[in-house]
């Protein structure tokens, strides 16, 4: 019974803390109303022993004497109405609105505060502290502490219950597992890229191999649905085959045809960039985005950029479907996933909204009038465009004039790839191969095209 006295004595007298009834209630697991009485009792007994030993604040609830607060704004507002508008006459039925005042007051002001009340329906001790509370806003900190003390955060036995409360059902083993599965599925994304480099950088191949395989294996046990993850693991190498092949072909041709067909190069670049994105489960992550209905129209081409192989594609679709189902269960994973996606390996920093990582590398120089490549590899140039100019003439009409203008551009402001590049992608795979075009395509694409991957590449080592 006297546990509370000990608790209060320790906290208030020894540690000089302010204790509110909420904090006491949560710390000792008693009902708040009991806690209020405990505080009162403690306050009384201490001050009986030694006046001024502890100081309380009170919470007063009731109706104040009319005249000051309750009616002034009310009448002002109502009085105006009838004067200004001569709409169908309105009798406002009520002129006074009962106003309940909830006041948190220090004990030294309690008397004054009470005298303003016409009727007090409830009063209790709110907090007890070792000193007279000067700044009541300090109580906010105590309140925060009380929140933290709350039994497992959300359950609050003290509050008025509500039997009809409905929470969202979370099917399956819960959010955590799904999240793990998702990140696991995502894990191979950088891995695939590394493997892709393999044939090219033959010297380092063995090293990479070990890292990738170990990576995949690492993720495997963590993944929740074993079929899903195994599919990921298996589909990743499968998926790799076509681009790797292509690379092999082009790599063998050496650097002779470097100046060869820029278009092919860019296309190949596109293919490369999009290809690895697919086995990483990007499309499945994008799908739930459309739940939000915002801004993901540019993303849509992505799933269309399917690889040539139909079996892997089937695999992928099945897996994507599965992922999508998981995704739709909770959008928390969506967020996490997006972070994962935007930087597969770098530590997660505070940019929660970076959604389109694949967009930037995918941007490709378009046909332009004059293009020059500056020393740092950036493309700059000028192109002719038709500008619309709107001016207001002297009569107040808007006139639109079209005029030609030169516009300079650099790589930064190139538009996203057109959605129709599905054919291009598949076409380019064959064309690159048949013409055995240019290691340049690959070399240019490697560092420039997939910035994410190069970063992950280095962090791996």
């Amino acid at each position: 019974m006297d546990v509370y006295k000990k608790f209060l004595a320790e906290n208030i007298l020894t540690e000089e803390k302010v204790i509110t009834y909420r904090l006491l209630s949560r710390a000792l697991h008693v009902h708040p109303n009991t806690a209020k009485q405990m505080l009162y009792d403690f306050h009384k007994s201490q001050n009986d022993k030694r006046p001024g030993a502890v100081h309380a604040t009170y919470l007063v609830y009731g109706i104040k004497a009319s005249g000051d607060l309750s009616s002034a704004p009310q009448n002002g507002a109502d009085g105006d109405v009838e004067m200004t508008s001569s709409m169908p006459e309105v009798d406002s039925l009520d002129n006074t609105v009962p106003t309940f005042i909830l006041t948190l007051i220090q004990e030294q002001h309690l008397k004054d505060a009470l005298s303003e009340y016409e009727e007090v329906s409830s009063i209790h001790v709110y907090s007890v502290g070792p000193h007279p509370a000067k700044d009541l806003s300090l109580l906010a900190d105590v309140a925060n502490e009380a929140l933290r003390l709350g039994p497992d955060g959300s359950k609050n036995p003290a509050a008025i219950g509500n039997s009809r409360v409905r929470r969202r059902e979370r099917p399956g083993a819960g959010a955590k597992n799904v999240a793990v599965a998702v990140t696991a599925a995502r894990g191979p994304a950088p891995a695939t890229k590394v493997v892709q480099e393999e044939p090219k950088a033959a010297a380092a191949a063995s090293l990479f191999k070990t890292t990738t395989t170990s990576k995949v294996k690492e993720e495997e046990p963590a993944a929740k649905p074993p079929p899903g993850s195994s599919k990921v693991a298996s589909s990743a190498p499968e998926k790799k085959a076509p681009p790797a092949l292509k690379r092999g072909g082009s790599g063998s041709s050496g650097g002779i045809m470097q100046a060869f067909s820029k278009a092919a190069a860019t296309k190949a670049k596109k293919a490369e960039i999009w290809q690895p994105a697919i086995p990483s489960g990007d499309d499945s992550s994008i799908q739930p985005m459309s739940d939000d209905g915002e801004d993901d129209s540019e993303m849509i081409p992505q799933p269309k950029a399917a690889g040539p192989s139909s079996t892997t594609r089937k695999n992928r679709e099945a897996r994507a479907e599965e992922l999508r189902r998981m995704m739709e269960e909770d959008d928390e994973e969506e967020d996490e996933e997006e972070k994962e996606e935007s930087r597969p390996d770098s530590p997660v920093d505070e940019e929660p909204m970076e959604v389109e990582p694949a967009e930037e590398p995918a941007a490709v120089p378009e046909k332009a009038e004059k293009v020059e490549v500056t020393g740092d590899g950036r493309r700059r140039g000028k192109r002719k465009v038709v500008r619309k100019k709107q001016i207001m003439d002297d009569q107040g009409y808007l006139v639109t004039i079209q005029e030609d203008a030169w516009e300079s551009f650099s790589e930064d402001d190139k538009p996203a790839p057109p959605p129709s590049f599905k054919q291009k992608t598949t076409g380019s795979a064959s064309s690159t191969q048949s013409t055995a075009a240019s290691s340049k395509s690959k070399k240019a694409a490697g560092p420039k095209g997939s910035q994410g991957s190069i970063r992950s590449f280095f962090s791996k080592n």
Partner: protein
Amino acid sequence: MVTLDDIANAGLLQKPSDNAPEALERSQSNYKPLHSFALPKDRQYQQQFADIYFLRLTKIKPAVEKVASIAWEGTVIGGERAKKVERVLDVRQGELCWVTGTVYIDMALKPNILEDVSKDRWISAPPSIDHYFSEEGHDAVMLEDDSGRIRLIGDTLKDFFMVTGCIVAVMGTENANGEFQVLDLKFADLPPQPERWELSKPPKPVKSKAKVKDGDVEMTDSPATAQGGKKMAIVSGLEFSGTDTSYTVELNLLLEYLLGEALDPMAQQNELAHISRLIIAGNSIAAEQKTHVEMDTGKGGKPGVHKKYGYDSSSYNPIPSQLLDEFLSELLPSMPVTLLPGALDPANASYPQQPIHAAMFPKSRAYTPLPGAAEHGWLDAVTNPWEGEVDGWRVLGTGGQNLDDVFKYVNSDDRLGMMEAMCRWRCSAPTAPDTLWAYPFQEDEPFVMKECPHMYFVGCQPEFGTKIIQGPDGQMVRLIAVPSFADTREIVLVDSETLDVSRVKITTGTGTSE
């Protein structure tokens, strides 16, 4: 006057007793949201806005003409009989007639899109002007329909609230200057009002049980303040802030009050347990003035101003939304919440604002419905404006932008009068899309009030106000201007049976009298 002696040893001011306090059960909220203002997910913004005006005129014109023909049919002024004219263009000089159309008010300070375009001014934030009207009286009131427009003059106009976009019928004559001398003016007045419990069923068994319970429990001294009926609480402008902590204590007290932890058992049982629902009418998150400006210019595509192009994550302060989330997650186990977005909230800026996305509430999200679920959630993030049926009453509520914008047109402080005018115009956002940003609707004009609400509340207002207005067919509408909690520390309680309004003001000691 209450003195210390009166309250000594009352209620909780005594030693703890052994009998455990019994658990209270909150009254249930009977609730059915309507999705009148939900926009399609794949919104297009290519359309013109003209359709909104056309649709509004088409929808409201018959009602206005009915009112007008009852009032003016057979009116003879100066030996001339008033005739109805179908279109604005058909008005003939010198003939006494009446015609219906949309009001357009040209105001000196009103933002003008043509001016913006011609000066190559592209801003992303709506300009913040206190008012659009000019004191010198240069404002021109026009009446227009799809045929043409005519300028309205006359002292009669001063007797009415007029804003761009409301539909009126005017009677008068065109003078030699081509201006229409208005003699009288009519609105559509309140639309037909649905019966109570039109969409949901009254919970009869629950009601009786609650009564039994009331009777059982220690009703020795019946408190005068106890009003048995259920209540809904409306609050707006909570403005959880990352920097301003001046009203954190009040927010905590509000939470304790709503949860039913504060006060003594009597008050808890008689009052707090009867608050069945909390409606948050906008502005739950405080404006971070500086960062807002930064983000706007950043998004506006002026890379020259900032080094970082696009969104700058370092300017993001997650604390306000975290605080809101904590507040909600504490409250939700005890009470269902309807959450309207407001001007400051993370929702789209244009009317109708769409629900705040559940991703904003990592903790409270468990109470939101699953995506695609038919049933509304325990935490119901809704649109602004929002329409629904709460305890049988049809409720229309907004986050306040519609009223704030109307306020800028009118040289008056009578916000309740403007709310009334909106009801009588049958349009909850008449100034959209002219000065209130709005989605370019093509098929429907949702701001037209098809049915008269029983209760119409507008959030984020400078001060509390309420009144009841009546319509010609016996409609009764309870208007409530909900004050911003951050400014006034007030919340509004509405009785679910009588729609009587009371308010609760939360003060902390030194702030009030000393």
